């Protein structure tokens, strides 16, 4: 019995992926309720890269933490990643709608209008509070 309980309690594994020249650093921490994506996202096959993240979020949605903090700090991303990032937000939106608040922190460098606008794009589609955070160079 103990083993089973233990197994349930730890079933939401933490995923950490180091960044690479084409893919971002990713940290998914179910216990603390943290989702972090940092760096650049320009893989040729974005669907393949993001699938484990989407799968994790789906599982996380079954028993989310009280609050979830999402930090997106991208240098730049390609159009094939843009749809995958939207998918991530859609999963998070479901969690938010179920009464487990989600907050998205969207970081951009101070003169980076493209990254600011990209944040606005997602904000216009997704019903989760976005915090736009400007970073100094």
């Amino acid at each position, binding site marked *: 019995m103990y083993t089973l309980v233990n197994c349930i309690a730890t079933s939401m594994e933490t995923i950490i992926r180091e960044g690479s*020249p*084409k893919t971002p650093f990713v940290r998914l921490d179910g216990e603390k309720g943290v989702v972090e994506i940092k760096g650049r996202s*320009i893989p*040729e*096959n*974005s*669907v393949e890269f993001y699938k484990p993240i989407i799968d994790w979020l789906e599982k996380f949605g079954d028993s989310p933490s009280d609050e979830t903090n999402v930090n997106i700090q991208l*240098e*730049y991303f*390609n*159009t*094939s990643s*843009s*749809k995958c990032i*939207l998918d991530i937000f859609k999963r998070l939106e479901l969690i938010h709608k179920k009464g487990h608040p989600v907050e998205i922190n969207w970081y951009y*460098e101070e*003169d*980076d*209008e*493209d*990254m600011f*606008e990209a944040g606005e*794009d997602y904000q*216009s*589609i997704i019903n989760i509070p976005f915090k736009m955070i400007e970073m100094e*160079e």
Partner: protein
Amino acid sequence: MAFELKNWYLEKKQGDVILEYNGSITPEVIAEALESIEKSLNLKNEKNRVRKKVYNVFIESLQNLYHHVDYPPVSAQVEQSPRFGIIILSKDGTFYRISTGNFVKKEKLNYIKDRIDQVNSLSDEEVRMLYRDILNNDEYSDKGGGGLGMLDIVRKTGNKLEYYFYQFDDEYIFFSLDVYIS
């Protein structure tokens, strides 16, 4: 006059050439090309805003090629490799120019032309709205990009796409595309 790749090169290489590549466009080539332009002093000295735009549009242009190009015609005086494409990044005066070139079968001409003409006909605000629509339409193309590539380039550069189709032979067209970033 028959199409001469040499002359096309000469035209696109005006200014300081930061990177020039022709051959098979593979994920490895794309990674190396990016690494190489990141070392460019021209770009290092740029404002963040411009530098990132150049990286972004450069990657999008290369990945556009990667997803769409094919073998060149056998009679073309180029490397006979799958996914054959050409990319040239140069700084010409106050702007950066990214030129791509590739061979396409004649029957694809109208499709490409219509697509570019459509994107070019839109105002900045229309580009932004269409981008959001496509982003949110749930469809992935088999290439993964979902048709956002050209739109993204126009949006980021704020400039129209300049294209030329050169008749190569009865079967093939050489498709040349220039984008400018300033």
